[in-house]
């Protein structure tokens, strides 16, 4: 039996003889593997970024809003006729299980003023738990307390964007700003969260909800809030908690079966899942496009190997005349194809990793994540391609008749 090592050596010699051709053949695989690595890196980078955004916005959230009421058949926007109250919030927390934290929220756009500085932003009227629910951390100073809510205190916590816009390098703590003409004392500034999509999560201020209801937000429906936001204890029970809140509020608002509900609950998990699956689809799409180029590289190998078999017909004849069996010839050409594809795969991994890093450096904001999995996957794939596309030419070579092959010029 002829040993594989000797065939491997012969294959290497043959490939070395045709250096340029071998390099060009591998190029197809190099490009294919690089593309797969880069696309997978971009895909999982995007997926990770979305994940982070989601986490920064808070997870396991249930948002209860006043439902749009029909007035004269015309649907008005969600929250247009507020039906939720702070009392609703308090009783939900007391009566429904599975809620870790909950806060009623109202928000309005307001003009802020400090000295001659102006800034328009969204004012969030909240309970202390809101910071925890939405993952806002206090950078310095303190957050809004229950005490502030009980006392209708005119205190505000600034998002970092607002702090910079109004105060620049100054320490805002203890200073007084005007929120729509009402003076508020600044007690704290939150840590920068960055943006979620186009939305700057730091361009806002927080005030106690009781203060807002009494003094800042002029509402036609006193005591109501825009929404109630609740954080579930865990993702598994979130759907049940949603149902429980729904039942509880339906009963509490005395809504009968055939009546339309005056509130609406949104589940953040659903939204996050949708978002995740969108990103995943996008990543799969990218990887599929890249795989096509890898496939094209494989066809390139088959093409060149077929040319090579024809060109080396005489050599094959000589080998057969001096004792090579069909399987020896087949193995040699198959090994040549696999060497081409695997070496292309190795170089492709290198250029792919470098390429992915370049993508991250040169594009603004696109983050890439190179996984060991994608490297192993594309290397294995290039090997499989070598075998799959190398087999046919190798088999063709092995079927040659020695006498015809010897006569070939």
């Amino acid at each position, binding site marked *: 039996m002829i040993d594989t*090592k000797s065939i491997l050596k012969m294959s290497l010699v043959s490939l070395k003889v045709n250096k340029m051709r071998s390099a060009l053949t591998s190029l197809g695989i190099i490009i294919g593997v690089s593309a797969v690595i880069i696309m997978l890196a971009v895909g999982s980078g995007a997926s990770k970024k979305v994940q982070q955004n989601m986490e920064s916005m808070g997870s396991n959230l249930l948002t209860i809003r006043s439902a749009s009421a029909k007035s004269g058949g015309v649907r008005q926007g969600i929250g247009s006729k507020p039906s939720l109250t702070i009392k609703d919030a308090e009783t939900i927390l007391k009566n429904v299980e599975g809620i870790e934290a909950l806060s009623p929220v109202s928000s309005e756009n307001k003009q802020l003023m400090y000295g001659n500085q102006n800034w328009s932003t969204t004012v969030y009227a909240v309970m202390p738990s809101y910071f925890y629910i939405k993952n806002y951390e206090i950078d310095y100073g303190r957050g809004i307390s229950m005490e502030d809510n009980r006392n209708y205190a005119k205190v505000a916590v600034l998002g970092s964007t607002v702090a910079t816009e109004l105060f620049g390098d100054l320490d805002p703590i203890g200073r007084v700003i005007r929120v729509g003409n009402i003076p508020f004392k600044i007690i704290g500034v939150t840590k920068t969260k960055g943006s979620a999509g186009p939305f700057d999560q730091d361009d806002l201020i927080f005030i106690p909800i009781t203060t807002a209801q009494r003094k800042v937000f002029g509402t036609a429906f006193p005591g109501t809030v825009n929404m109630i936001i609740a954080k579930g204890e865990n993702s598994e029970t979130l759907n049940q908690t949603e149902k429980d809140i729904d039942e509880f509020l339906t009963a509490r608002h005395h809504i009968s079966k055939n009546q339309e509900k005056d509130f609406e609950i949104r589940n953040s998990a659903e939204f996050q899942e949708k978002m995740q699956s969108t990103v995943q689809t996008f990543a799969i799409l990218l990887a599929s496009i890249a795989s096509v180029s890898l496939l094209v590289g494989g066809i390139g190998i088959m093409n060149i190997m077929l040319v090579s078999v024809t060109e080396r017909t005489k050599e094959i004849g000589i080998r057969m005349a001096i004792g090579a069996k069909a399987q020896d010839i087949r193995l040699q050409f198959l090994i040549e194809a696999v060497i081409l594809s695997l070496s292309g795969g190795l170089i492709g991994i290198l250029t792919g990793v470098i390429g992915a890093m370049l993508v991250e450096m040169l594009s603004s904001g696109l983050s890439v994540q190179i996984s060991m999995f994608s490297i192993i996957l594309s290397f294995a794939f290039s090997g499989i391609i070598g075998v799959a596309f190398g087999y046919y030419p190798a088999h063709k070579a092995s079927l040659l008749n020695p*006498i015809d092959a*010897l006569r070939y010029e």
Partner: protein
Amino acid sequence: MALIEAKNIIKTYITGDEHFNALNGVSLSIEKGEFVAIMGASGSGKSTFMNMLGCLDKPNSGTYVLDGINVTDLNLNELADVRNLKMGFVFQGFNLISRTTALDNVQLPMIYKGIEEEERVKRAYEVLEIVGLKGREHHMPNQISGGQQQRVAIARAIANDPPLILADEPTGNLDTKMSIEIMNFFVKMNEEMGKTIVLVTHESDIAEYCKRVVHFKDGSIISDEVKRK
């Protein structure tokens, strides 16, 4: 027992509607240690017969027994083994693998025999020295003369130490001086190594080196003479 025992070999080529008998019932027996020249006009079937002897082609009918093995019964893999172990080829066109060193060319039959690399390389150096190519081991075929290329081919033919050497016009592409050199190697292989040699040639000078001359005409043997020595 004879090394080669060919009986009633018929080889028919079919081109279009035409059937053409390149070999017309050839019978030939060659003993171990013989040095046979095959002569005849162009197209008389010499190469066709050599291809039969070399197990490269199968006859349409007739039997061929080589070294006690009935070759006509063998499958393709077994034929490859017979070619590898029982015979060495020397062709008119040298038939070395291009852009491959003399050393690697000579190793080929040993690779297909399954000999370990260390032993293979040692033997390749040895046979290259026998054919007078010491120092040329790492030359490519296009870096040496035709005579030297044919000597590499001879080295390759004897690498596995087969009993039979088949040579189809081995000096056909060489000038007189080189032809003499090559023929001296054949004599040496026959007399010193005890190889049985069957050699096709057009030239009577070359046939002079042989001990027996077989003449072909139109696919049949018309004369078979053993020379006195």
